C-alpha cells in the first residue's frame, strides 16, 4: 500500500469499520494535561464548556490553575492576555464559533499585537458539529486567525495529532490557534507520527521514481477522506500524493512547492469556507512561487445546517467522492 512508511500511520487505516474513532477535541484534553504536567505555568480558562471542550481533566487535576469564565469569551481572551503578561501560559477554550468567533478583536489587540503568550483552542469547528446547526458550526475560524500577525495556526487531523499540536502550542512562545472538531473521526496517526510546527508530511505517496498525477493537500479530519479518495484513485491507475498539512501558519513551503513541481496540479481539502482557509494560504503561496491549477474542497460561501456529520460533509461537497471529482477537474486543467 502506498502509505509513506515515515508517517507511521495505523495499519488498517482504510478499514473504516474497524478503525478507532475519537474526536480531535479529546486530543486537546490530553495534550493540555500533558503540557500542564510538564510546566506549572500552564493555566486553563474555559467559557462554560468545560466538558465538551475537554478542559475538564485539567480543571480537576489543577483546580488552582483553572479559571471558569462563564459565558464571556471576550473577557476570557483579555483575562488570558493579562495572565500571560504575568508569566503564565494560558489556554483558552470554547467553541470556535465564539472563540475566536466572538472575541476576534480582543485576540488581535490584547493577545497577538500585545505579544501575549496565549493559546486559543477552538472546539466544534466545521459543519460536522452536526445537529446543533449553523450557529455552532465555525467554518470561518481559520480565515479569522490566519491574517493576524504573530499568530500560529494548527488544524490537526485526528485526536493523536491534536494531542501533539496542543502540547506543541505550549512550547511555542506567542499566540497559537488550534482548531478541533466535535465528532468522532478515524484515528489514523500514531504516537510515532511526526508533528512539527511548520511541517507538512506526505501520508500517501506515488510509486517510487515516478511523479504523481495530482497532490492532495489536506488538514483536519478530512485528511482521512483524502486518503480514501487516493485509494480509490489508485485502483483507477492514478498516481496520487496526499499531504497532511496541520500547520496552516507557518506553512511548509518546501513540501508544498515540491508537490506543485512534482504533480503540477493541486487539490486542497478542508472543513472550512474555501475563502480564507488553508487552500487560500496554499494558493497565495503557489501563485507567487509556482502557479499550477488548484481545486478547492471546502464550504462554498454557504452556512451549515442541522444534520448528521456524514450527511453534512456530503451535502457541502467534502466527501471522498467530491475529492475524486476535484482531482478529475484539476487534472483536466493541467497544461
Amino acid at each position, binding site marked *: 500500500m502506498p502509505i509513506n512508511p515515515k508517517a507511521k500511520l495505523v495499519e488498517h487505516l482504510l478499514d473504516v469499520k474497524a478503525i478507532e474513532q475519537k474526536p480531535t477535541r479529546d486530543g486537546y484534553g490530553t495534550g493540555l494535561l500533558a503540557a500542564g504536567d510538564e510546566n506549572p505555568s500552564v*493555566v486553563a480558562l474555559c467559557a462554560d464548556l468545560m466538558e465538551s471542550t475537554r478542559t475538564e481533566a485539567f480543571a480537576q487535576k489543577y483546580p*488552582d*490553575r483553572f*479559571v471558569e*469564565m*462563564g459565558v*464571556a469569551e*471576550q*473577557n476570557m*481572551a*483579555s*483575562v*488570558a*492576555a*493579562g*495572565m*500571560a*503578561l*504575568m*508569566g*503564565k501560559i*494560558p489556554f483558552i477554550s470554547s467553541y470556535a464559533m465564539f472563540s475566536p468567533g466572538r472575541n476576534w*478583536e*480582543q485576540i488581535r*489587540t*490584547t493577545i497577538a*499585537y*500585545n*505579544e501575549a503568550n496565549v493559546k486559543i483552542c477552538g472546539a466544534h469547528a466545521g459543519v460536522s458539529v452536526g445537529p446543533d446547526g449553523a450557529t455552532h458550526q465555525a467554518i470561518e475560524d481559520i480565515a479569522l486567525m490566519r491574517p493576524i500577525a504573530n499568530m500560529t495556526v494548527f488544524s490537526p487531523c485526528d485526536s493523536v495529532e491534536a494531542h501533539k499540536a496542543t502540547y506543541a502550542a505550549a512550547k511555542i512562545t506567542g499566540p497559537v490557534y488550534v482548531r478541533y472538531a466535535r465528532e468522532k473521526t478515524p484515528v489514523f496517526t500514531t504516537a510515532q507520527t511526526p508533528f512539527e510546527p511548520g511541517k507538512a508530511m506526505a501520508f500517501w505517496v506515488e510509486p517510487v521514481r515516478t511523479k504523481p498525477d495530482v497532490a492532495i493537500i489536506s488538514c483536519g479530519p478530512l485528511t482521512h477522506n483524502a486518503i480514501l479518495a487516493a485509494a480509490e484513485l489508485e485502483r483507477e491507475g492514478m498516481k496520487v500524493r496526499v499531504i497532511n498539512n496541520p500547520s496552516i501558519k507557518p506553512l511548509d513551503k518546501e513540501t508544498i512547492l515540491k508537490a506543485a513541481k512534482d504533480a503540477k496540479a493541486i487539490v486542497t481539502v478542508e472543513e472550512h469556507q474555501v475563502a480564507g482557509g488553508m487552500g487560500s494560504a496554499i494558493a497565495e503561496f503557489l501563485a507567487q512561487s509556482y502557479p499550477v491549477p488548484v481545486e478547492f474542497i471546502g464550504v462554498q460561501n454557504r452556512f451549515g445546517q442541522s444534520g448528521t456529520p456524514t450527511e453534512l460533509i456530503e451535502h457541502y461537497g467534502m466527501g471522498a467522492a467530491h475529492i475524486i471529482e476535484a482531482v478529475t477537474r484539476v487534472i483536466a486543467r493541467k497544461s
Partner: protein
Amino acid sequence: MPHLHEDKIKFLEEMANQIRQDVIAMVSHARSGHIAGPLGMADIFAALYFHILRHDPKHPEWSERDRLILSNGHICPVRYAAMARAGYFPVEELKTLRTFGSRLQGHPHRTILPGVETTSGPLGSGLSQAVGMAIVAKMDAKKINIYCLMSDGEQECGQTWEAAMLAGKLKLDNLTALIDRNNIQIDGMTEDIMPLEPLRQKYEAFGWHVLDINGHNFEEIANAYETAQAIYEKPVLIIAHTIPGKGVDFMEFEYPWHSKTFKPEEAKESLAQLRTLQGKIKSEHE
C-alpha cells in the same frame, strides 16, 4: 504608601501642572491626539507615578512592581508625560508622539515602550487584562497591586461588565480600578449618549467596594488608594470626578475637546494659562 505631607502635595501640584504643559506641547506638536481626557487625568497620573505606585523607572521590568493598566489608551499622552517625568525615558522623546518610528504610538503599545504594561486603545478590554493580572498575583501569592484606569465612556462596553463580574466573583482585593468620570465622550455627554448612572450601585451590585472622589484633590486621590489597600475580599472601584480639559478654561467641560486638535494660538493660550495656574489648582484643596 507614605503619608501625604503638605510639601508633597505642593510637589504633586507642580508635577501635574508640568504634565499638563507636556501634554499640550505634545498634542499640538503632533497635530493630532486627544486632549481633554489627558488634562483631566493629570492629577491622578501625577499622584500614581510620584506617590502611589511601587515601581522603578530605571528597571521597568522589575517583577514585583505594581501594574498600572491604562484601559482607555487614547489618553496616553498623559501617561507618556508622567513616565518621562518619572524617568522612564528622556523628556525630549515626548516630541515624537504619533510620528513614524516613535515608541510613543498614537495608542500605547507594550512591546516597544518598557513600562507601558499593555497595549490598549480599543475600549473595554483593560479591566479584563487587569483582572487576569490580579488572578495571577493571587495564584502566585505576590503582594503586587493591580491598578486599572478606565474612561466613563467605556462603561458602555459589555466586556467591562464581564470583567467586573469576574473580579467580584473572585474577590480580587488586589485590584483597584478607577473610572475617569468626566462625563464626556466623542459624540457628546455620556448621559445623553448612553446613561451610565447609577455607576456606584452598579459596581456595588457586582461585588465591588466603591469610592467617589474629586479627581483633582491629591488628598482624596491618595486616601482612596490607601483605603483600597485596606479593603479585603472585594475589588475596589474609585469613581474619580474630573473636569475634562482641566487647567485650560476654554476646554473645561467642553466635549468637542475630547479629540479635537489645537490651532497654534489655542495651544499657546493653553500653555500661558497653565503657567499662571498654581493658584487655581490650589483652590481645590481649600
